[in-house]
């Protein structure tokens, strides 16, 4: 049962995926709060998004090709939310 929630690797990666989303949100919003209107804010958000996606990709690799689909979905939702959240920095 590769999908079991009680496998440590599964629930840890699942929670980490959303923690990465939370960290990206806090960095992007925190930068805008401290330096409103500064162009550097957009670059910070973009850089944080790239770093976050790299971490999520690492998680994806760790899950492996025969890993849990639910954990993969968690990584995908986190990545989608991060991508969506980076849009305001690019076009806002």
């Amino acid at each position, binding site marked *: 049962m590769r999908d*079991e*929630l*009680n496998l440590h690797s599964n629930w840890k990666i699942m*929670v980490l995926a959303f923690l990465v989303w939370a960290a990206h949100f806090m960095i992007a*919003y925190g930068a805008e709060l*401290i330096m409103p*209107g500064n162009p550097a804010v957009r670059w910070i958000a973009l850089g944080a998004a790239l770093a976050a996606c790299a971490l999520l990709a690492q998680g994806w690799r760790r899950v492996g090709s025969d890993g849990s689909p639910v954990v993969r979905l968690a990584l995908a939702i986190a990545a989608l939310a991060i991508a969506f*959240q980076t849009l*305001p920095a690019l076009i806002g």
Partner: protein
Amino acid sequence: MSSETGFDHKLYGLFPLKRKRPDKEVRELERLWETPKGWKVLTAVNNNYVGYWYVITSFLFFLLAGLLALGMRLQLAAPMQDFMHPDTYNQFFTMHGTIMMFLFAVPAVEAIGILLLPQMLAARDLPFPRLSAYAFWAYLIGGLSFFASIFVGLAPDGGWFMYPPLTSSAFSPGIAADFWLLGIGFIEISAIAGAVEIIVGVLRTRAPNMTLDRMPMFAWAMLVFAVMIVIAFPAVILCTLLLEAERAFNWPFFDPTRGGDPLLWQHLFWFFGHPEVYIIFLPAAGLMSMMVATIARTELVGYRLNVLALVATGFISFGVWAHHMFATGMPRVSAGYFSAASMAVSLPAGIQVFCWIATLASGKIRWSAPALFVVGSITVFVMGGLTGVMLGMVPFDWQAHDTYFVVAHLHYVLIGGMVLPMFAAFYYWAPMVSRKPLSDRLGRWVFWLMFGGLHVTFLPMHLAGLMGMPRRVYTYLPGRGLDTLNLVSTIGAFVIALGVLLFLYDCARNFRFSARGPDAGNIYGGGTLEWLPTGLYSTRSIPVVHSREPLWDNPGLAREVEEGRHMLPNAATGTRETLITSPVNAEPQYIQLMPGPSIWPMASAIFTAGFFLALTVQAYPFAIFCGVVTLFATVRWLWETDGPLPVEQADVGAGIILPVAITGPRSHGWWALNVLMTVIGMIGFLAIFSYLYLYGIHPEVWIAPPPVGQTALIVAMNLAVLGLVQAGRKVLAGRAGKPAGNLPWVLVMAGAALAAYALHSDISGWLAAGLDPTATSMGAIVFMLMALQGQVVFLSLIMVVYLAFREARGLLTTPHSVTMDIVARFTGFTALQGVVFAIVPRLFPGG
């Protein structure tokens, strides 16, 4: 499956035992778990009673808030009515929102959790029954006192989110706003107490082998719910503290003329307020997931997807708070972040809805009252969710902000996401606690009246809002196209009321509470453990679980459990007890001794309420008296716990020997203290956020901090506290087999005293630097940090005195003591917080 704790999983194969256990063991369980008779029943602490009272009380508040809504709808039924005075109308909408959100929605789901979880997890009770009792009594007394304010003209009138400057002393003189601030602060204590109980209960009292992957969906939902409370509720506690300090002591957190900012309130309030919506929705979603499976007579489609959706919602809901603030002129990019998160959160909510629909589609639906409520709630919730996505778009929100469109949206979400599932749950689980089930025929009428009534009430509000009708106005002009819409809404409100009235009639006619059985039983054919036969001690023996719906997979389980052929079939220690299992795989770890009935949790709650009420009316001597009695009552309630053990180990069946009560990271007390420290830590974290926020807005009022040398001394003293408490624990650990002696508590007391002195030095330093809490926002927030640190230092001092008393009475066990464990770790936490509060304000100098 690999073992989490070293427990051999092959031992599960010994259950069910071959032979039935003797009946005298049942009689012993009945004797131990018996509830006092007559008025002493109020001292009961087990979940059958406390959970039931809790549910009834929360429903009472639902009715009271509903009556206020009817009053408002009468006033708005026609233009320019004078059914009620404008000021009364302001009080009505404030009380309606406050009661629904704080006194009904959250307590109701907590109540259902306290009632259902022990049975669902097959625990004898939740791990801290006296804490549950305290939470209930605090909620009942605090809630009724708060509601009574409307009869004496002291009800708050600033809206349920109480924005300053409207609620500052200048615009809201008198004590009505203080009633709200102190009342809600007090009631939140009750919610947090419940959350501690639920987190530890779900993680540590599950039936053996009920791994995380086999946990009922409601337990998952309650776990996420309680964790969210622990993260979100400190925000509302902090903001009520800040506003009360501004009103009572003139500390200008929200006064822009002295460096404050009213938007700080909005940030803090909505950091709590929006997750609150999911805090309300998720447990109801858990109930829905369980009912959907039974209604469709098939396993829930996408169990793990549902769990993922719960966890994802829990996280993402903390990134949406400022979408309530789009109209405040936020920077465009910031608004974009919150807009994006608001839309992203609909992904996991959508996953849940599709899982429910797929389950209903793949099974064979048996139509009944709960089934109607479940399908109705999916429909209504989706409609509310869609308007939520609309409001998540900034330009649309600018148009619809503070109009009746928002009123319609939030009622669709909350009624579809919580009220209808709760009524479904009433019909579905009533047979578990009543000798007779509720009437299915009447239930269908209740559903159609409520379902029809809510559309008649709230659909027109979308239109009224888009036509420009603002919320929170007591009347409107004729001839603006709003007359008919409002009249229809009023009629709809009374149709809903008729449905609720019919439900009350159904309860009066059919519901007969039965705490100790027999009850009407599993009439809908549910597959989870709460449908096992139970008494006040929950199930006779605690079953070993092998699937998510054990009753479907093993129809003989009820008989096996009743015959005592599973774990803990008797009172192994000769007292109230339950089995503590590991957090992930639910492997049996130890037996926890449970406290019995007690008057002290109720006494503590009464005097805590007295303390807050006295503060509200500024009767400070009486507040001090109540505070002292509260402390005494709390100490008395705790005194009977953590005494010398009747036995060190006990047999839980099939020759499996487990220890009785342990300390350290494996113990449930360790987990509870961690949760409590997270709550206090979150308050501190948000206070630091407030400091940085005010610094970012008004750096011109910041002054130079005290000298670096003094800061280093404060940090050094707090680090020394850590050394002292650790030394105290080490000394106690070295006293195995001997009396504890004085040294352990003396060391910890020295630590607490040093933490107090460090705080004194910190305060003196800022005063010497010329900081005045009433002059600027910097002074206010720095002294608030000191006040928060003062609270934990005070608690540490009380705890070490308690520790000393226990040692004097020979109740400090060696080599390990739960009391020592808790006091030492809490004092250590106090020191760490002292370090953070000393350093951070000095990192952002002004002047």
